[in-house]
């Protein structure tokens, strides 16, 4: 531009006056596309879609974590929506190391009347996300999520969806009260992880159940070996009393009877409260249980979250004062030399700016036509063809929610080594647009959905 200096000085006065006092968005009547310029960050947010945020909060009332209250939670044990037809077999295992997956989080996400895939008979709807705690698997998983072969790829991150109509055999028609227990009992789950269906029983004491050999071994070494022998001994000696008790109420008697019998054993005895709708786990490898609170995304007036810098307004005023006193210090030609940051950096800055309104958010939910996740990094984004169609009905999948790395901070994931600790940039979950049922007749069962993991670029 020829008259750069003049125009700069000429325009600045009025333009500053306009922009300083007015916080509203200026209308951009621009018909051309923005793809021409290096505009990674879009100031004019065409995102009319409302995003719901999830925040972490300590569990205040443990009864709310029971499945009949349809919780949204992170860590602990899953509160299965359909307590009978839990996923089993290969679905419970990491596709790469074959160990059982760990429960990360679940959301209760019913579909509203204005949303995609709304159906009258689908009233309750939950999604469950499982991750293999091994970071090496997650890195291998990156290759697998790109595969588009007809059979299911081996993933280390799995998402399951379940839905039920309002009248179903598991829950009452009306919202539950505080002390209610679910209408039907759940299938017994593994005593070690509390997540998967228990397929085998401990041969010694016949009390502990397991979903896999791995967990049986873990529990054995984790204290069950001493406990099991004691129980066996007691069983042998107090045959009549204990046998009766065990036969009638195998679950409940565990605490009382065993506590009296086994005084000095240093083992954590947790009873599986299958009747109250909450499963307990003994494993210390599972993530700590916290509640997931729903919140709205505010139009961030973030700003002044920068503590060590002064307010931008103040800086601007200083600049103006200096200009008035000393004249223009730097010309535009001087500043041409200073280059802007790369596209990747700009994208990252935009990502952080978007989070700035609520820095402790861990989940972003937006299930609508045309909703896109907020990607922290430019590379590693899926193309439309990478999102596989629904395994169940073959229909397309749409974005539902994404997990943010703040979650790792809240879960206190150990950061010691760079290979063992979990670290990701974001996990985006795509679910069937039609929210199809597992089978035609009933709504029961779990459908596997698609998760896209974007790892942090170091």
């Amino acid at each position, binding site marked *: 531009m020829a008259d750069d200096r003049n125009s700069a000085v000429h325009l600045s006065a009025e333009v500053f006056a306009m922009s300083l006092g007015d916080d509203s968005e200026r209308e951009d009547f621009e018909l051309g596309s923005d793809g021409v310029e290096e505009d990674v960050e879009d100031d004019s947010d065409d995102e009319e879609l409302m995003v719901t945020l999830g925040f972490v909060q300590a569990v205040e009332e443990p009864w709310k974590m029971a499945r009949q209250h349809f919780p949204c939670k992170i860590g602990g044990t899953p509160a299965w929506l359909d307590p009978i037809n839990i996923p089993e077999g290969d679905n419970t295992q990491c596709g790469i190391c074959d160990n059982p997956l760990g429960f990360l989080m679940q959301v209760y996400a019913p579909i509203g009347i204005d*949303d995609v895939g709304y159906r009258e008979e689908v009233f309750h709807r939950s999604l469950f996300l499982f991750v293999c705690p091994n970071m090496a698997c997650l890195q291998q998983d990156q290759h697998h999520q790109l595969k588009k072969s007809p059979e299911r790829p081996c993933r280390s991150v799995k998402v399951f969806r379940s839905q039920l109509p309002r009248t179903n055999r598991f829950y009452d028609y009306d919202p539950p009260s505080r002390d209610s227990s679910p209408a039907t009992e759940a299938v017994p789950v593994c005593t070690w992880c509390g997540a998967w269906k228990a397929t085998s029983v401990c041969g010694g004491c016949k009390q502990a159940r397991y979903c896999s050999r791995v967990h049986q071994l873990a529990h054995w070494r984790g204290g069950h070996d001493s406990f099991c022998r004691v129980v066996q001994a007691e069983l042998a000696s107090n045959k009549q009393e204990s046998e009766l008790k065990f036969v009638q109420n195998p679950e409940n008697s565990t605490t009382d009877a065993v506590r009296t019998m086994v005084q000095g054993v240093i083992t954590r005895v947790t009873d599986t409260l299958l009747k109250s709708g909450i499963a307990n786990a003994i494993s210390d490898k599972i993530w700590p249980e916290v509640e997931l609170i729903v919140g*709205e995304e505010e139009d961030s007036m973030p700003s*002044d979250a920068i503590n060590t810098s002064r307010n931008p307004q103040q800086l601007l005023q200083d*600049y103006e004062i200096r200009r008035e006193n000393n004249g223009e210090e730097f010309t*535009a030609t001087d*500043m041409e030399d200073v*280059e802007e940051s790369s596209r990747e950096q700009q994208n990252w*800055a935009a990502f952080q700016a978007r989070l700035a309104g609520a820095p402790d958010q861990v989940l972003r939910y937006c299930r609508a036509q045309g909703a896109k996740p907020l990607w922290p990094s430019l590379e590693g984004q899926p193309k439309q063809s990478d999102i596989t169609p629904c395994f169940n009905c073959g229909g397309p999948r749409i974005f539902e929610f994404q997990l943010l790395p703040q979650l790792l901070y809240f879960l206190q994931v150990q950061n010691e*080594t760079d290979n063992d600790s979990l*670290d990701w940039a974001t996990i985006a979950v795509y679910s069937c647009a039609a929210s199809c049922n597992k089978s035609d007749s009933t709504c029961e069962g779990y459908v596997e959905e698609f998760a896209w993991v974007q790892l942090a670029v170091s």
Partner: protein
Amino acid sequence: MAERGGERGGFGRGFGRGDRGDRGGRGDRGRGDRRGGRRGAKRDEEEKWVPVTKLGRLVKEGKIKSLEQIYLFSLPIKEHQIVEFFLGSALKDEVMKIMPVQKQTRAGQRTRFKAFVVVGDNNGHVGLGVKCSKEVATAIRGAIILAKLSVIPVRRGYWGNKIGKPHTVPCKVTGKCGSVTVRLVPAPRGSGIVAARVPKKVLQFAGIEDVFTSSRGSTKTLGNFVKATFECLLKTYGFLTPDLWRETRFSKSPFQEFTDFLAKPHKISVVEDVEKTPVY
């Protein structure tokens, strides 16, 4: 029994359009005063930082002692709060220029503002950030963050006698970027910074008091003059001077440092004795 859920979807609180009405009791653990403006103390702000990257988590936990440790291993700093954590209030910032940039569109001209901000603590750290945005305040805000992310360490030395504080570059260093080469030469006290306007500002914020500069190449057209200056400043740490002749003890990268105790196989923790459980 109050009928909380409607006929449409779900009971009580959940995601999607289910029902957000229950948020009133729970969801406002202090979230309500977010809009009331930030009058809180500085400590309040720092606690609000939730790290997003692994390095951020390590810094927040306190596992990293200084910014220099991060520079030593050339780890990319992606969160500006990391820099704030170490440098804190010593970091000063200043707007160098606000430049309106125009783009021709069918409906006229679209003006955006480009803000140039330099941050530095006058004590060996300086950074420069550029951001373009529709509003001036947003551009400044973004530029401050980018400047903090680009903070580099600057080493200072003496021209002659080693009395007082270091005031100039420790030796002659040159940096090259594109076709531009910039050479920084130590100067005696009182010389001041002899350089072009923008590098002069950068060097001031770095804490260098006296230096002679000389540049070559087409500094006017091809630009990257400032980048060459930055390269120069970075090189001040790469130069081996006699006082560094003592052998370096290599330390472990923060990501490696805490591996030692995990040397044992980690699959299932064998708990034979309660006392033997590794406590960390």
